[in-house]
């Protein structure tokens, strides 16, 4: 049963992953990627990682909803109504990709993975909660600092100079 669910989700994840680079429409590509992430979230739930699986779905769908705005804003042909190719060096990329898959796949199958140590905790969510609030606290502190730095630098990069200079004449709302 779980094997069947695994296979279905895996097929969805891979098929929509391929679809990202096959479909013409940027909107479709973005939401194909979102579907791939949702399927991977499902795989995590299969591995008893309920919390991380659901969080993956949450984060990635949100991210893709924002992403699609950028796609539509910057791309020449977001709806894919006009046939045009946005690829370069397809053959080389395909070769490298196939090589990567063969290499990683061979490693996955051939490496003698060590035996399992320990058992899955009764509540993995509690386990990770206690870990990040206990011994792994520095990691989370580091991540939060990184996220904050990201917010600041992304704003600095993306926003034209003087965006937050309040206009002289009014409170900066849309009145004129």
């Amino acid at each position, binding site marked *: 049963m779980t094997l069947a669910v695994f296979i279905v989700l895996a097929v969805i994840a891979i098929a929509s992953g391929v679809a990202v680079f096959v479909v013409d429409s940027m909107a479709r590509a973005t939401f194909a990627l979102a579907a791939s992430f949702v399927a991977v979230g499902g795989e995590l739930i299969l591995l008893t990682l309920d919390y991380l699986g659901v969080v993956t779905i949450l984060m990635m769908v949100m991210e893709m909803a924002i992403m699609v705005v950028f796609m539509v*804003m910057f791309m020449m042909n977001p709806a894919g109504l006009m046939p045009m190719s946005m690829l370069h060096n397809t053959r080389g990329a395909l070769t490298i990709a196939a090589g990567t898959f063969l290499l990683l796949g061979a490693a996955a199958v051939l490496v003698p993975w060590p035996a399992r140590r320990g058992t899955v905790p009764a509540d993995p969510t509690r386990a990770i909660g206690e870990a990040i609030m206990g011994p792994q606290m520095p990691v989370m502190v580091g991540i939060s600092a990184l996220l904050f730095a990201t917010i600041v630098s992304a704003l600095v990069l993306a926003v034209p100079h*003087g965006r937050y200079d309040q206009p002289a004449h009014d409170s900066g709302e849309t009145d004129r």
Partner: protein
Amino acid sequence: MGLRTSAQRLLAGWAARRPHVLLVTAPGGTAARLAVEAQARALGGVLTGEPADADVLVVAGSPDGELADAVGVLWSQIPAPKVRVDVLDSARAAALLSAGIHRLASTPDAGAESTEQVEPMGEHVHQQEAEMGHEHGGDGGHGHGGHTDAEQGGHEHGGHDHGGMQMPGGLMMADRAPDRDGLKLDVLHVALGPVLPAWPSGLVIDVELQGDVVQGAEVRVLAGAGDAMRFWADGTGVAAGRRRAAAHLDSVGRLLEVAGWSGAADRARGQRDVLLTETGEPVGEAREELRRLRRRVERSWGLRRSLAGLGRLGHGDVSRLGLSGPAARAAERGGDVWARLQTWLVEADLALSSGPVAPAEGPRGRPGRGSDALVAAAAHLMPGLDLGDARLVVASLDPDPDDLHSTGVAGDRDPHSGHGENGHHDEGPHGMPGGTNHQHDGHVA
């Protein structure tokens, strides 16, 4: 289509209990419009602004020229089963509308002639029901003009472009131009009007949109048939004061509808109807009702927050644009959308108690000039606003198409241009990180 079962009849009967009426007003059709609005409400129907949602198309007055074409496009966009009702005489509005709705109920698809047109990238299935209720007998051929790629026809959402690249489906790729954040983004050309919810029907404002931000605006007025009577300005019947108050309440209703407060809008329209019909109602009672509405509106924190500071017209603008009437007097209160709303409410009250504030003027200002100036003001204010704010500004000025038409300027004057403002605004944060002011490209029908 052989499945005309009793079940289908039953459904049609139920469906007709809640008709969705799309109302188009042609110049001179104001009286008919008011009658239809009242009757639609009484029949349990709802007025809708979207052809996709309509099953009864009511045309108040007789459109011609471009407006008639636009009505034809609208009719073709309404999915069957559908009924068209033309109302010229307000006295017969109720009977015609009821007959139309009855027709809708009794014949789910009897006599339906379906025309199928398959176009390159989209199919349009028109199935046409009985058309009925012509006051003016011989005119059988309402534009069922198929799918014209019209920029008019309020709901065709026209995306015609200048010299763009041709794409499949007859679409054009959008132009690009710098937006206010310094990004070079696509420009869409969209016509607002002539038919939109809570919009002065017949008015068309061609806007250049980047995302949902208006970068330029040009006004056109679709000419109507003959010399329309200016209902609000020189209609006869009830006393001048009541008529003036009703005119302002009509505008208030439209503005509140655009602001998304349909309950209060409905109250304003209800009072308007009472003022126009029941001449016997004591002034005191009408004023009390009006004051209650005003208190309700003025106490709404959300509305005030939405309207205050928007679309400001100072004393300088008033004289430069030649504004008169309430819109000019609103400059005393700050000259924004909120001030214009308050001015209408205050002046409606004054009109009831002691007659119109400026008896020589119409509700829109100086006769023959008022609405023209309002339209110019709208075109002046719109660039730089997002589409919702632009709609609020237009609704707060509320030019009267009848007024525009009868002055004779409408047909052949130069469009008032907002291009002087040009597309580049650096007016500061719109308050939306990554929100609505984004673009899309060529994906517009």
